[in-house]
């Protein structure tokens, strides 16, 4: 997290987010397997990070001073890959190799294969510990970068996450921020209970006060709508303030919708993973890609293709 120019116009970010969502649905459909709901719920957060907040250079993915990003909910890899491709880490065309044999784009993120992937993930619950270690190492090395970790709300059921939550505060890691993609659903979970759930299954943290739990661990807690770029950037600003004031780790509890942005995938656990058929692809294309400014979209694609 270093000096950064003005935030990009919201319209541009929204268009990018729609493009990412299209690549998620379409790539998974072509590969005939993959996750949808989790990638779509975190899309706006990742677009905001990669196209505005993170101090990174796609041409130098190993820059020692870059901000680090850990996708702890590794099953949402295709969402990260789509963002990385559009940001220029590798050609957008390469997305079509997702999940295929001999591909750099594995089903779950592999830091040894994919440019821009800082930490391997896939077994849920491990990313925050890795983030704590990175942030500790950054402090020991006096490197000023910031470390970001995105976690799922179901993932927070893993005990290892809470080991890391506890450590981050003990070590006073102001250079670490967690983002919880609070999309209200996991893969299967529990049957819905009237009045306590947002969608068609029980909300993972519907029975508990998650922000209060983080506060109890001494974290700075920022609660936002994870689909509003204004609120996301407001949260990033508060993270910066807390970081420069040395207030310890921050968590952005981002209330999101699983499967957000596509009419038939939103708000249901049934699209945790799934393969869209031709009619669904056509519908999603109409919802996501009918742009008033096709020129800008083409420009974005070219930018991604470069590299």
């Amino acid at each position, binding site marked *: 997290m270093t000096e950064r120019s003005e935030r990009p116009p919201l319209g541009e970010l929204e268009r990018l987010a729609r493009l990412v969502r299209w690549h998620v649905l379409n790539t998974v459909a072509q590969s005939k397997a993959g996750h949808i709901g989790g990638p779509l719920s975190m899309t706006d957060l990742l677009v905001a990070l990669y196209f505005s907040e993170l101090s990174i250079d796609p041409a130098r993915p190993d820059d020692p001073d870059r901000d680090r990003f850990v996708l702890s909910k590794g099953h949402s890899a295709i969402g990260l890959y789509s963002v990385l491709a559009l940001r220029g880490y590798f050609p957008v065309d390469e997305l079509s190799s997702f999940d295929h044999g001999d591909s750099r784009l594995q089903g779950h993120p592999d830091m040894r294969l994919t440019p821009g992937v800082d930490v*391997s*993930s*896939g077994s849920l619950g*491990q990313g925050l510990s*890795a983030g704590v270690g990175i942030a500790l*190492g*950054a402090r020991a090395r006096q490197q000023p970068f910031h470390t970001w970790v995105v976690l799922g709300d179901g993932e927070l059921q893993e005990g*290892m996450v809470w080991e890391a939550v506890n450590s981050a505060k003990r070590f006073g890691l102001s250079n670490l921020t967690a983002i919880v993609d609070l999309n209200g659903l996991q893969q299967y979970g529990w049957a819905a209970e009237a009045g306590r759930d947002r969608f068609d299954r029980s909300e993972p943290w519907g029975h508990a006060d998650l922000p209060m739990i983080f506060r109890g661990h001494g974290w700075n807690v920022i609660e936002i709508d994870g689909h509003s770029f204004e609120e996301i950037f407001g949260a990033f600003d508060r993270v910066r303030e807390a970081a420069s004031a040395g207030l310890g780790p921050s968590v952005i509890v981002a209330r999101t919708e699983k499967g957000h942005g596509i009419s038939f995938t939103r708000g249901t656990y049934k699209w945790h993973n799934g393969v869209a058929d031709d009619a669904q692809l056509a519908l999603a294309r109409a919802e996501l890609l009918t742009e008033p400014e096709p020129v800008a979209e083409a420009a974005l694609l070219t930018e991604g293709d470069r590299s």
Partner: protein
Amino acid sequence: MKAQRDVWGETLVEVARTDETVMVVDGDLANSTKADLFAAAYPDRFVEVGIAEQNMVGIAFGLSTLGYRPWLSTFGVFLTHRALDPIRMLVSQTGAPVRLAGAYSGLLNGSSGKTHQDIEDLAIMRAMPNLTVIAPADEVEAAAVVRWACEHDGPVYVRLARDAVAPVLPEDYEFELGRVVQLRPGGPIALVSTGVQSSRVMQAAALLEADGVDVRVVHVPTIKPLDECSLLDALEGCSQVITVEEHSVIGGLGGLVAETLTTHGLALPVTRLGLADSWSESGPNGFLLEKYGLSPEQVAVRVVASLLVGLPTRAG
């Protein structure tokens, strides 16, 4: 005689003098594992994580991405069992240079009993791709292995013992990854051992000699990657192999030796001595070694028995 844990702590303090990448990440056991020596010498490079072994592994991995080569300090059992999944994904699958020091390995852990005894670590860790697995015999080899691991650019699991054993290697011993060490020449019966059990096997060989049974002793420090040719050379002319390990008879050294021999078409009978697919219990070292057949006397008795009974493969 010095315990391997003391050697580990002291050697790290020494190496860290010139190697700034050495760090120690502890799970609230530094005063058992002897990481406290390091903590006192380099408080800035010592990370106390507390009783959270999975988290320890994740943190050590994170540190490794910044160029550090951290050592983990906890009982082996809590690494190879409690923290196995993070070891698998963040260390083994990434090849990160994280050093796993499995302290208090095997049966002898200060009477803590089966919850703390690690008799499956070799089987588990050697099944992990990318991981180097080493079980040094004594204080001399422990020091050499710790130094070697500090240099190695990849993950290492080192099996260390709590209590001292009689040294079996000369002061000027040089550890060579993969190579087995012929500790004692002898006839067609070979005792093959690993870790500190090799010291007890040497004593068993002396007892057997007194009874007129001449055995050779081969120590296998590197469980992975094994230099297979060096093992085959050491077993040249053997008619029977008896493996002895402070570990389950399933999947550890016995498995490794049997796999290696059959791979090379050597139909030597292999008798595997160790924990016979059962849990152990609390008790003083002498009691446990005696009851579970790993003391020098019991090894000698079992060797003679296996010679008298003949070959289990044919009897079976």
